[in-house]
């Protein structure tokens, strides 16, 4: 079966998931904090669109609620909170030198291949559209993790964290049409609390070490020297 034989809806969903993956790569390379937050918000918006499409095509209308929560949390609330924090901490103009951008991109590409490899046993169970989307959602999770590893600024790490959440949400939507409602609510609540706590932490880190560079958090060692 080739892609051209898929229904229009499925083709649209695949395109959207490709764009979500693209935003993950953009996040990986983006060095300016404000642009980083904007890119994150656009990833959230694509996720919202994807969820709406899946809700429409599968006829599971409770997904619209999940989509609404995504829109509220990932597109409006979290980016708004981050922007506000960036303004109040006065780090708007901060540019982070992402070390070895080409290596990170290659590593990112390798992670995508790896996720397709991991998703191999799963995708044989399911139809063509889901096959790709599961692999892509895993790739988004892993790319978020890679971003948290490579970044030194606390704000960028939080964006990486939230983008991992995006990947998880996408995985739940495409593979199982969302989790049960009570779980979705619980997860959304956790994300909300986490976002607020991150904000509190920014101020604590700033007050404690005088900068938001997590490289300065280096007082605790596995083995005392």
């Amino acid at each position, binding site marked *: 079966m080739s892609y051209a034989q898929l229904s229009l809806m499925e083709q649209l969903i695949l395109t959207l998931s490709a764009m979500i993956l693209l935003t993950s790569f953009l996040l990986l390379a983006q060095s300016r904090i404000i642009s980083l937050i904007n890119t994150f918000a656009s990833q959230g918006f694509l996720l919202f669109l994807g969820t709406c499409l899946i809700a429409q095509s599968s006829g599971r209308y409770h997904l619209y609620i999940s989509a609404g929560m995504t829109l509220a949390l990932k597109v409006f609330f979290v980016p708004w909170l981050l922007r506000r924090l960036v303004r109040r901490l006065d780090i708007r103009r901060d540019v982070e030198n992402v070390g070895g951008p080409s290596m990170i991109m290659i590593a990112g590409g390798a992670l995508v291949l790896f996720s397709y490899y991991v998703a191999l*046993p799963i995708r044989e169970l399911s139809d063509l559209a889901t096959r790709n989307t599961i692999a892509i959602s895993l790739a988004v999770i892993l790319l978020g993790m890679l971003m948290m590893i490579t970044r030194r600024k606390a704000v960028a790490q939080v964006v990486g964290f939230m983008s991992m959440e995006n990947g998880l949400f996408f995985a739940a939507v495409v593979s*199982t049409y969302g*989790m049960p409602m*009570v779980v979705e609510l619980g997860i959304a609540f956790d994300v909300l609390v986490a976002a607020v706590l991150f904000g509190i*932490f920014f101020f604590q880190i700033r007050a404690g070490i005088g900068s938001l560079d997590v490289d300065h958090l*280096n007082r605790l060692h596995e083995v005392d020297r």
Partner: protein
Amino acid sequence: MIALYATLLIPFGAMLVFAVIGHWKHAGTLNLLVCFATFLTSLQLAIDVFTNGFMITPGQLFYIDAFNVYLILVNALVGLTTSIFSRPYMAYELKIGRVDGGRMRLYHSMFQGFLLTMLVALSTNNLGILWVAVEGATLATVLLVSLYRTPESIEAGWKYFILCGVGIAQALFGTVLVYFAAEKISPGEESTLLWSVLKDHSDQLEPTVLMLAFVFLLVGYGTKIGLVPLHNWLPDAHSEGPTPMSAILSGLLLNVALYAVVRYKMLIEPALNNHLPSYMMMGFGMLSFSVAGILLHHQRDIKRMFSYSSIEHMGLMTFAFGIGGPLATFGALLHMIVHSLTKSAIFITVGHAAHIAGTQKISEIRGLIRTQPAVGWTFLLGTVAIAGFPPFGVFTSEFLLFTATIESMPWLVMPLLIGLAVAFAGLFRHVQPMVFGEPPEGQLPVKANMLPIIFHLFLVLWLGISIPDILANWLDQATIMVVGKGLL
């Protein structure tokens, strides 16, 4: 049923109330009373389950059986004794100005919030809610780790937040995969993420998906158990927060994460036609056990040292659940109880010791027995107990584990014995001078409530000499739940 709802609602209500009045001067006492009430209701719950068998609430949101009810009881008990300790301890911290009113509010509120999330995680029937609750436990404690606002504690808090957040995200992916596999059985039904439903259909689930799911789940929840090499956050978080928090983090939270892994193993292993989950748990467990024992030697902070000891014991339990079989499982379940009790008792004495010496540095804590015999001796006894000496309960459970290992994989006994000896040497080379050494000039005793410590050590001693029939039967029921076959 009412007992269950009360067990969950009391801490929930208390969390909200303390958010407002947590800085009140009797808040510590109120905290104690709330914990006492929770303990009573969970005792009632345990009796209900013991006499009537397992129970599912209407709506199937909560599911209580022999396996989780005993952990709920241990949770409530250690919560209670820790709150007894926390009252004077936090009052002292307030007096010396390490915390202020606002932070006391946060502390008391999150103390209850933390107990609540753990109780929800243990009692829920929904595997998604289990995840939400375990993540909730991280969120509740993360600000407590950084409560003192020193650069070290902020670093510890950030590390805890980020590493556990990333780890637990893997567990959510694993949960999604389990749901994906379950959806194939009855599409479109929300009940398919319920443990009680999944357990009945575990043989129909797709093995390849489940295998992949287990890898993610073990890595995810394993981060919270503190399995090496995912343990990096644990010593920091346990050592930098207030001591009552260390006691319940080490004594309880690790158990809850291990409980989650064991639940999934019960579900996934029968569905596969191989023993991958067992082997993975054995491998991770053995690695944690050995590495933590070695790292114990190199610690300079007393609380860090005992958090490595926690990693070591969690590794041992994970290993035991991996071996499987009634004997090993029974031993591991017993070990969960005795480790919780002993480790929280040790952290409480460590809290007193740190107040006596005014520092947490091992090299500066000296002569506890001379300064305050009660603290010195209980500290020594606690360490003897956790190192696995008879007649304490840790010896009994470790003995059972070793017997089971000899039965199934004799060659693994050697590394286990070596690991035990290494850990023992590591503990005692640090503890001996702290207890017996020459006290520095002018070191004064502090006001200490020894009741919780003595009570815990007494229970551990009792379990070491004779396990009461009722508890043995109970653990046996839990063993039957986990491996399908009892010991007795």
